[in-house]
């Protein structure tokens, strides 16, 4: 079992954001989470990546219980994520943004930095090389020296991917990667995601663009009001009565 979520619940005061969800992410696959706005998808991601603590339930990653582990420790275990809004530092270059992605695999501290020790120089070099490697993978080598503020929305998304990939992850959580970009660019991102899986990574993504999900996802989970209402292959989910109801409202029989 790669990542398994068991009876996960998150309550914000009176609001039940995620309710008793059991789900597993399959290794080497593209796992998708869909659902109407406010269904609890992002909260679910925050629970897996460790930004929120669950009210109850457990999360196990590669056989290890990580329910109480802080986000930075989970990243070290190999769980990376991107955000809906990319969170990049706009006033710095792409390269400068991505270098920090490999920081978790380094150990030099304040004193190494001030004294510029061998370890620091070696690790700095490793971070730069890693950044070049992932920028090459996402196709941003040409704009590595550009300021993030001057990139297109799609390029920013790719830079955010690069940053996540620089952490050497095994599982990448993508929160609405195709939001705010045009259909042509979406195709480019689809290709990139498929490439990531072919490289041996496992992907779990939240997305609203159905055409994209139906095309690339191996498995889909559908959330509505914090509850899992369906799970299966794109074909199964597409024809599921409860899903159609959740999206269109009322009865699906027309």
């Amino acid at each position, binding site marked *: 079992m790669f990542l398994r979520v068991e009876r996960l619940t998150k309550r914000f005061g009176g609001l039940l954001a995620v309710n008793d969800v059991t789900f597993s992410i399959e290794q080497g696959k593209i796992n998708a989470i869909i659902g109407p706005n406010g269904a609890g998808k992002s909260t679910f991601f925050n629970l897996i990546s460790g930004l929120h603590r669950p009210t109850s339930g457990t999360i196990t990653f590669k056989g290890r219980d990580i329910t109480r582990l802080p986000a*930075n420790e989970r*990243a070290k275990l190999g769980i990376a994520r991107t*955000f809906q809004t990319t969170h990049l*530092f706009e*006033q710095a270059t792409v390269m400068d943004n991505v270098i920090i992605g490999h920081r*978790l695999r380094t150990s030099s*501290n304040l004193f*190494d*930095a001030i004294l510029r020790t061998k370890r620091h120089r070696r*690790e700095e070099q490793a971070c730069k090389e890693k950044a070049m490697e992932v920028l090459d993978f996402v196709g941003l080598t040409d704009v590595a020296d550009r300021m993030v503020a001057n990139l297109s929305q799609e390029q920013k998304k790719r830079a955010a991917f690069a940053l996540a990939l620089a952490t050497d992850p095994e599982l990448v959580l993508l929160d609405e990667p195709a939001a705010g970009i045009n259909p042509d660019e979406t195709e480019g991102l689809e290709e990139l995601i498929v490439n990531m899986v072919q490289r041996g990574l496992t992907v779990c993504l939240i997305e609203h663009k159905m055409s994209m999900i139906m095309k690339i996802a191996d498995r889909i989970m559908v959330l509505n009001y914090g509850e899992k209402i369906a799970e299966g292959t794109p074909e199964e989910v597409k024809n599921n009565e409860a899903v159609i109801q959740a999206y269109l409202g009322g009865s699906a029989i027309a």
Partner: protein
Amino acid sequence: MAILEKRRLWLAALIAAAILFPLFVANGYYVHMMTISFIWMIAVYGLNLFAGYTGYLSLAHAGFFAIGAYALGILTVKAGWPFWLAFAAACLLTTLIGVFVGLVALRTKEHFFAIYTLCVGYIIYLIIDKWDSLTGGVRGFIGIPAPADIGPLSFQTPAAQYYLVLFFLLVVVWIMHRLVYSLTGRTYIAIRNSEELALTLGISTMKNKLASFVLSVFFTSLAGALYASFIRFLGPDIAYVSVMFDFLTYLLVGGIGTLAGPVVGTLLVTFLSQQLQFLQDYRMLIFGPVLTLLIIFYPHGIAGGIIRLKAKRGEARRLQLEARQASAELAAASRQERSERYAKEG
């Protein structure tokens, strides 16, 4: 590379000017003013490390400045410790207090952190003001010795003290320079940029924030200890909120989160307030609007504004170059097409 060389040249010239300053300026008053400015700069660098590079506005730093100053005073005068031992102990003690304050304060974020540290600063002021038997309270604390000799080096003259302070300032700038361009500095900037993103990148934000806060307190306590040995008289006023806002003004005018900011801002503001001395308190009528305008139009201060302008120009030049290249390629392609067509038509 040319840019780096040019920057190095500028830096060398600046340091040379600072070294030659007391030799060419006979007026002792200016040397005194400059020494004080250097001390403020060290404190502002401390503030800059945490507020500018790590993204947390600490308003307790005047308090740490005062703790450093009073600790030196108390250890030399009341405990009779040798000067340099007391100097080191004063900085370490303040830094230690910084660790404890940081452990609690860093549980809060953003404006809550600012408010919390503002309160810490005020509590420090109150303690200094009310603890008569230790600090002398409102009467002040007098008789602090000047820095003791180190071997053949004596610090009794104003010029010697000027060089001593300059030395510490250069060390602080050097450390800051190393730090900012290192992995550790990048880590701090990542936290400033987005704490959530930093966490999911595997960065222990608490550990890094604490390290940055503690080093920033250390710099400020160093400035405080230097202040005590230079002015040799202390009043509780140095822990007061107005000193804190002076630091902040220097930093904002010069450029928060820039390496040159603390130097530029401190020099400019102290020079201006000297020039406007004849206006007495009315000089705030000029200062206030100027500061407001600066923050509206140059939120990153003078140094930050210049950096951004240069970056923009570089980007524009690059785009222009790319456009020119593209049009040249296009022209070449159409030329080739035309010649091929001619060849075909024979």
